[in-house]
């Protein structure tokens, strides 16, 4: 590392062909591929929207108030994530660790909401094998839930590292990369909440085909 490669903040600049950190670039490339991955599943959901031959139908099972709360929880976890990164970069270990733990807790709460929702749907007779709505819904939200689960585990490790002093301001890039992943999970949910919940929740069953009486 040459002296010229040290910035005024004493931050080492990567000596790569792009001048950018390769790990961070790799994460952005991965997120780009994940955009296409989720895009395909969301498109599939929309293609088969309203084509279920048997119930339960979206308007009979989707619970907007509950999902609004879980959406708020995930949005706030993104806020906690960016605050955690700020404090870790500032070298404030305790605040950094605390906010990473908040991310873990909020992520776990979101997973809890999803688990309860899935169980409720199963209780109402909707499983991935019931109809085309069930198949596309469970695959899309299930894959998103798997992403959240990976993120929570990742954040738990980082909280442990931060508490031990292994995650510091000079290697905060580790947290920043994890944060990119976490925020991406959040923006995917922003789309899912709009497309699947708010738009599809109005999809009533065909006349005479109601399966659930409230």
């Amino acid at each position: 590392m040459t002296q010229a490669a040290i910035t005024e903040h004493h931050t080492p600049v990567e000596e790569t062909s792009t001048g950018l950190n390769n790990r961070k670039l790799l994460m952005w490339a991965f997120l780009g591929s994940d955009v296409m991955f989720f895009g395909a599943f969301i498109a599939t959901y929309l293609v088969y929207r309203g084509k279920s031959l048997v119930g339960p139908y979206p308007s009979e099972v989707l619970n907007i108030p509950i999902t609004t709360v879980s959406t708020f929880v995930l949005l706030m976890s993104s806020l906690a994530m960016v605050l955690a990164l700020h404090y870790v970069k500032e070298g404030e270990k305790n605040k950094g660790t605390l906010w990473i733990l908040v991310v873990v807790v909020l992520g776990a709460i979101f997973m809890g909401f999803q688990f309860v929702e899935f169980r409720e749907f199963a209780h109402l007779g909707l499983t991935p094998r019931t109809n085309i709505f069930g198949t596309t819904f469970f695959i899309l939200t299930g894959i998103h839930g798997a992403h959240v689960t990976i993120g929570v585990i990742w954040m738990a490790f980082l909280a442990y590292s931060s508490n031990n002093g292994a995650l510091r301001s000079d290697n905060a890039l580790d947290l920043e990369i994890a944060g990119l992943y976490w925020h991406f999970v959040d923006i995917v949910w922003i789309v899912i909440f709009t497309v699947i919940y708010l738009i599809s929740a109005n999809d009533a069953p065909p006349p005479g085909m109601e399966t659930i009486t409230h």
Partner: protein
Amino acid sequence: MASLWRKLTHHDGNGWWNLPHTPSNEPNPPHEGPIGGAWLGNMWRILTHGGVSHAGPGFYWLVGLFLSIVTLVEVWLFAVEGLGSWYIPLLLFLSLLKFIGVVAFFMHLRFDHRLFTYLFGASMVVGIFIFTLLLLLLEFGNQPPN
């Protein structure tokens, strides 16, 4: 009008949304506010971070508040009847606002090297292309021949 257009769209140093060149490890460039490099950026710096040159917790809380309010508006739209054909476009617009808020500020694309923006933007374009193609193909591809 031409001046306003230039400020909105140009990235040549005078635009409100001017993207700075920064080293990868310094996503918050000096002399650059979260909204822009001109007076708007300075105003935000003073409001949110005590005059320090990059976005701080106050600004992130503001973005969080904005995201929460937009979510509440979305749910309110869901409850309102009579929006008709405006309902879906309005929801998609609000969803786009939240998307941009998270990507630009929480993911730091607003502050970061523009190569990341190009990489993610290109993926979005390809993703939306695949998305549209799939919708069209499955919507019209199974039609019986006349």
